């Protein structure tokens, strides 16, 4: 249901809200209240209304952007709220559509944070520790050609091993930034995943697993790249470091994404996992 809105985000962002827009909105809302829901005109009016208001969603999403979720994801879920509002809007009530839609859009965005089950705020101290570990492990990795240990990191960073452990744990538990954020955030817009192209993940040998019935729906809850990482780690037995190198992200990010993906899959699968 969100498909039509999704592809038009980039275009809609530049829309200016003018009197002309306002008239057009009225016209479309009337069309929607007069037409049958299954008619193509109704669908077109609905799509156009949604598209017109995506800038509102983007505006609202911006208020949440420093909380660890990529802005585009927030726009995506906010758009779901927008679509719901467009569908439920009653033109006879005399409320502006934007006024009517705002609480629903914000509600969807907040729900997104709640559903992820992660804390929205990460203590600054841990954020900095995580950052430092990441930089330090890249530097040590370059020097020695292998992944460092906690002891080596602690010595290098001149902090205690406990602090490094705590930083690593926080990295796995808190961060919800997806790989798509790293890739510039526009990998959703119809572009095939480069990784998928090079690896042909669908060809993985999934011996011993009822792939179609069990694994497929579980993997479907994940974004494409996270699905690829799961397959690389568990079915091609690549190490976290190898995956990191292959995709061009840090090993800590791979670790974090694996933890998050497994939690998501588990939540979606229940006993079947």
């Amino acid at each position, binding site marked *: 249901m969100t498909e039509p809105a999704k592809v038009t985000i980039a275009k809609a962002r530049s829309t200016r809200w003018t009197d002309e827009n306002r008239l057009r909105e009225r016209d479309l809302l009337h069309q929607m209240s007069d037409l049958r829901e299954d008619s193509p005109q109704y669908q077109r009016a609905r799509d156009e209304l949604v598209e017109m208001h995506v800038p509102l969603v983007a505006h609202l999403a911006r208020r949440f952007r420093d909380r660890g979720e990529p802005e585009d994801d927030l726009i995506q879920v906010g758009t779901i709220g927008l679509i719901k509002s467009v569908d439920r809007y009653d033109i006879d009530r005399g409320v502006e559509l934007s006024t009517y839609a705002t609480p629903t859009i914000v509600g969807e965005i907040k729900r997104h944070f709640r559903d992820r089950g992660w804390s929205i705020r990460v203590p600054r101290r841990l954020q900095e520790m995580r950052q430092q570990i990441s930089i330090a*492990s890249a530097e040590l990795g370059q020097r020695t*050609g292998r992944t460092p240990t*906690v002891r080596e990191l602690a010595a290098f960073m001149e902090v205690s091993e406990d602090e490094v452990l705590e930083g690593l744990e926080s990295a796995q538990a808190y961060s919800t930034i997806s790989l798509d954020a790293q890739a510039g955030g526009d990998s959703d817009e119809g572009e095939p995943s480069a990784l998928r192209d090079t690896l042909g993940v669908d060809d993985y040998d999934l011996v*011993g697993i009822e792939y179609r019935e069990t694994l497929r729906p579980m993997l479907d809850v994940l974004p494409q790249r996270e699905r690829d990482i799961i397959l690389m780690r568990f079915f091609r037995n690549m190490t976290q470091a190898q995956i990191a190198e292959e995709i061009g992200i840090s*090993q800590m990010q791979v670790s974090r994404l*694996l933890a998050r993906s497994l939690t998501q899959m588990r939540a979606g699968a229940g006993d079947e996992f």
Partner: protein
Amino acid sequence: MDSSTVRLEFPASGEHLILARTMVAATGARLDYPIDQLGDLKLAVDEACALLLTDSDSDATMSIEVSTAEGSRSGEMEIRVSVRTRRGRCPRRDSFSWTVLSALVDSVESAAEDGLVSITLNNSIATPTSLGSNHRVDA
């Protein structure tokens, strides 16, 4: 070679898994695991516990035992997670969970006796894979 065992018991629910994970992470760090393999170890413990939790009684106690061979340079470690479950049966080996576990550690075994089900993970530090030069840093 002497070995030492640390044992932790906690109520069988997801919110306590961090205790099991932290215990294993601290042990792995002491044995000088590289941080990516440490991450794998934590994922494995999470997975093993979560797998047992799906069938455990709500008031059950989960226990985790981590045994290490002192003086070992290869980080040999045995992790045993156990809990009383309703069906008292070993987890299925054709599940995705089991595949995940098998990929994360050297070996996985399960046992069931009088309703007490356990999963035992054995692991050691893998030979470091040499890396290229394009290490990345989190933005």
